């Protein structure tokens, strides 16, 4: 291959090949170094910001895991323990019982337990919950917003490209550090002083 100009001289093609080979290693080192320089030691995982979530139900339909890795979480310190729970009962309920037609949850994933008059405890059964956020929406619209969505990392496979995050209309999904994998609501908040005005009086 090529002309040899002397015993210890490499051919032109071989010289070119070596040069390109070095160029390839330099390019690889450069890209790798650049990426490594800007890299983080920790891995990241996906999580929902409950403050941004708009309860659009994409979480229940777009996850690659079935049922979704997104689950409703109950924050007991925030919960009002209402006898009439807006997240539990369907707006068109017949009576305050756990009969299916009275429940808002499509999968019977909320357990309603009597504590003492007039308080009831509401528990989410993770393996039944599909992350549809129906209860979350009702609880936030009418109640204390103690129900909220979180990614359960026991189920989440941490896809490189989260398929729910792609569809999220409110940018509520982002990568969080491995060390802080949840955005939990746990602080009991200030009790509201609500004022009600009839629209008719305006």
């Amino acid at each position: 291959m090529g002309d040899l100009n002397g015993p210890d001289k490499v051919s032109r093609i071989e010289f070119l090949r070596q040069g390109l080979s070095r160029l390839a290693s330099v390019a690889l080192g450069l890209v790798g170094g650049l990426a490594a320089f800007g890299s983080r030691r920790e891995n990241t995982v996906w999580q929902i910001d409950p403050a941004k979530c708009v309860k659009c139900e994409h979480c229940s339909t777009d996850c690659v895991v079935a049922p979704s890795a997104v689950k409703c979480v109950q924050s007991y310190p925030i919960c009002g323990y209402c006898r009439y729970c807006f997240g539990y009962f369907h707006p068109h309920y017949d009576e305050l019982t756990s009969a299916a037609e009275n429940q808002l949850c499509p999968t019977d994933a909320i357990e309603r337990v009597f504590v003492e008059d007039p308080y009831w405890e509401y528990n989410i059964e993770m393996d039944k919950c599909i992350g549809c956020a129906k209860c979350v929406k009702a609880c936030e619209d009418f109640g204390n917003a103690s129900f909220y969505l979180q990614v359960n990392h026991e189920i989440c496979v941490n896809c490189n490209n989260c398929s729910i995050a792609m569809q999220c209309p409110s940018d509520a999904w982002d990568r969080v550090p491995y060390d802080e994998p949840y955005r939990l609501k746990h602080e009991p908040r200030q009790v509201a002083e609500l004022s009600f005005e009839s629209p008719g009086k305006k």
Partner: protein
Amino acid sequence: MVISYKFLDQRFIKLLFGLLILGLMPVVQAEDVMRFPAPEFDSNYTFPETWDLMDGRGNTIIQDTTPRDGQAPLPTSQTQQWIDVGVLTLALSLGAWLAVKRRSRRGLFWLMIFSLGYFGFYKEGCVCPIGSIQNVALSIFNSSYAAPITVVIFFVLPLAFALFFGRVFCASVCALGAIQDLVIWKPIQLPRKLTIALSMIPYVYIGGAILLAATNTGFIICRYDPFIGFFRLNGNAPYLYLGAGFLLAGMFIARPYCRFFCPYGVLLGLMSRFARWHLAITPTECVDCRLCEASCPFDYINKPNTGLEREERATGVRRLASLFLLLPLLVVLGGWVGHEMAPVMARYNNTVFLAEQITAEKADPTMKASLETTTFRSMGIAEEQLMAEATKIRSQMNMGGWLLGGFLGLVFSLKLINTSLIRDQKDYEVDKPHCFSCGRCCSYCPSDEMHMPNFKPGSKALEEALALGKPSEPEPETVSAMQKGKA
């Protein structure tokens, strides 16, 4: 009327809900306040032991209650990521040794099965070096994202190995390659023109993927990964059908994803063409016995061309000159096409798409507001901010479109030049940029002492090899018999 909720019972709350339905709306409706007070229990009620009372590290958040053992489930441990890096390094080293030194198809096959199990079904395919291209691209071009160091290592390691030992990653470590390798049944040889045309796809794919990742639009390589559904044993129907389609086609067109789609293959090919210690068909000197000729199901063996009639030198020079003249034209043309395609690619970006929807809804008031626009309006972000963001992404896409198109034009014209150049090929050699180092051809070489038992008189391999050595083109049946013999 101002109501303090402190002393209200649940009955009143129900009445209140009735009033709400009747159309009385709360005026003060803030996110950060509780509508109903926390109950004051008479019984010794304590909050249930659930993981939402703990943070991810197992620390109790609520300090004033009794200690609990419920804990939020942790993501896969950080150590696991480093174990994966270790397994990758070991698998690549073993693969390189088996391919270059041992020349053992059997060893590479079992390593491939292990990798399919570990990186495929156990790790469920994520993160893989193919997808890591996008993390690296996003990390370099977007300051808001930093790729984890383990992901960067996943990106660099197979390329570094390819630079020295060839594409050993493809043969025995990549789970996507492994699942396709297993289904090879009756590989056919595709027409050369078709393979050259198809081999442009990976360049389009990697260019597009980098552009879309760099603009934080999305990770298309992961999104359209055809096999991840199989690894997870779970997935959306369209992608599972896509994967099944690839596997079905893969029975006849060996490793179709690797050869005609894989974006990482482009980078591996750039590296492996310089590999100093690449897998070779023969350990000694090629005797041109033709026994290995049809052993590669991927058609990556360069055949000798010394006996062929050559064209006139002047014709060749003229063609080459015109191709070199065509090069800048193709680059500019490609750039222009890429620039024209930019608005289409930009629409793939959520921000741009949202901005376009908002504009469209403004122009046509009868249009039903979509979930995205409704959400955007409810969030109270200024429309100008969104429009400015969208304009920024559009201009990035425009720039990227020129670059991507120009790059593709350059690749295409280089491919044309490469195709028109006829190099002297004396022996049977692997096509270094493309060869997966699967080692199938090694056992067909009679010069290899290790594989000598294959060629004892009367052995099956020898009969097959002799059948292949006949002057006529080998029948597809014979090729398949060989494949069966190998697998």
